[in-house]
């Protein structure tokens, strides 16, 4: 009974291109939490002159890029994804309870998270597959409910054809009604009170290609732009 969808037999965006596209929307002066995986790649594409303050839930406010020289790697300065990082000028260290106070307390302008599924009402699933006895939550539940905006980044369709852009979640939820934008290898979507709005499609794809790869009805604005990635 499971719905299956298909991605078109055309080139889709690479992870790098997805990361690059998302990075365009991280605005100056924002405080942003970056999840593990593609989200971390996105940060690398934020231009240096754009002042985005990165929060890492293990207690780093003002996280910087990995050190350039291997000898500068510090076991005591790792991201939540356990990769070596640096501290930006004006950064600070806090403990875990203070770090999550910041996350839940409304001081994150945006969180960028990976996802298994996003629903048209903004529900997010990213911690557990259906039927599994357990899963990894990490900081995702706290960060997803706390951030003012949540950008989900993921492939549009899973390898086995399970839809990831859906009307209602079939995966166990991480947080309800939190996702504001979705960045995939096929499209950029906004989550609105009326459902998904298709903002941009990847070069070479059609609106129908994207719609066929969703288990949710997409709202089409007067102009659907092409992703500049």
């Amino acid at each position, binding site marked *: 009974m499971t719905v299956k969808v298909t991605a078109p037999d055309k080139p889709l965006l690479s992870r790098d291109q997805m990361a690059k596209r998302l990075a365009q929307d991280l605005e100056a*002066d924002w*405080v942003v939490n970056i999840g593990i995986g593609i989200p971390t790649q996105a940060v690398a594409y934020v231009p240096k002159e754009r*002042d985005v*303050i990165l*929060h890492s839930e293990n207690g780093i*406010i*003002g996280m910087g890029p990995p050190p350039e020289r291997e000898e500068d790697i510090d076991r005591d300065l790792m991201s939540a994804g356990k990769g070596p990082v640096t*501290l930006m*000028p*004006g*950064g*600070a*260290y*806090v403990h875990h*309870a203070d770090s*999550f*106070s*910041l*996350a*839940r*307390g*409304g*001081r994150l302008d945006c969180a960028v998270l990976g996802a298994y599924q996003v629903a048209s009402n903004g529900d997010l699933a990213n911690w557990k597959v259906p039927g599994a006895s357990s899963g990894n939550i990490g900081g995702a539940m706290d960060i997803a*409910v*706390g951030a003012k905006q949540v950008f989900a980044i993921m492939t549009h369709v899973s390898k086995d054809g399970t839809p990831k852009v859906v009307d209602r979640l079939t995966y166990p939820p991480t947080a309800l009604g939190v996702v504001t934008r979705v960045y995939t290898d096929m499209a950029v979507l906004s989550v609105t009170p009326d459902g998904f709005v298709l903002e941009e499609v990847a070069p070479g794809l059609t609106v129908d290609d994207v719609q066929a790869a969703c288990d949710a009805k997409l709202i089409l604005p007067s102009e659907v732009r092409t992703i500049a990635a």
Partner: protein
Amino acid sequence: MKKKKAASLEEAISHLRDESIVLIGGFGYGGVPEQLIEGVCSSGLRGLTIVNNNAGTGHTGIARLLEEGCVGKMICSFPFASESHVFKEMYAAGKVDLEVVPQGTMAERMRNAGAGLGGFLTPTGVGTEIAEGKPEFEVDGKKYILEKPLRGDFALIKAYKVDPRGNLIYRKAARNINPVMAMAADFTIAEVSEEVPMDALDPEAIVTPSVYVDCFYVTGG
């Protein structure tokens, strides 16, 4: 980098609005944002709810704020200090409302708000009139009451040093409630003795990270 430094006291205070909840830092003499309070006194603002441990002493600071008619309500733990003449008279005359809150509960309610939480269970006040109207819970055989978060529209705090980004450190016991209020308000304004260059503050020793500071005013004193 976001510009947070106010060019003048007036600019710093200009953010405030009538009928706001304003958290004001300080305990006794230490950590009081004296100039910001003076600024509010001259602002003509009305109907403010002020959160502070005390209700003002003498005729300066919060006492003057009361005399200027800016305050509709005080939330305090210790409102009737011996020198709180202004407040006592206005309270007796029904000109100002009062909510008395245990000091630790007051701090925790603000910390709870700042942490994005919806309340907490505390043993403080169980069996007292502070518990009236509040749900009581028994957890592992001990009684607690449910207290709600206390969020400010604004916080006026006092710090010792600030860097250009807005990171703060405090001085000795002048720290007191200031860092808690900084995290509990929608808009936090810090009165600071000294601005130091970027990276002059040890990132291990920053007490209030810049993300909690929306505006700072340097007094140079």
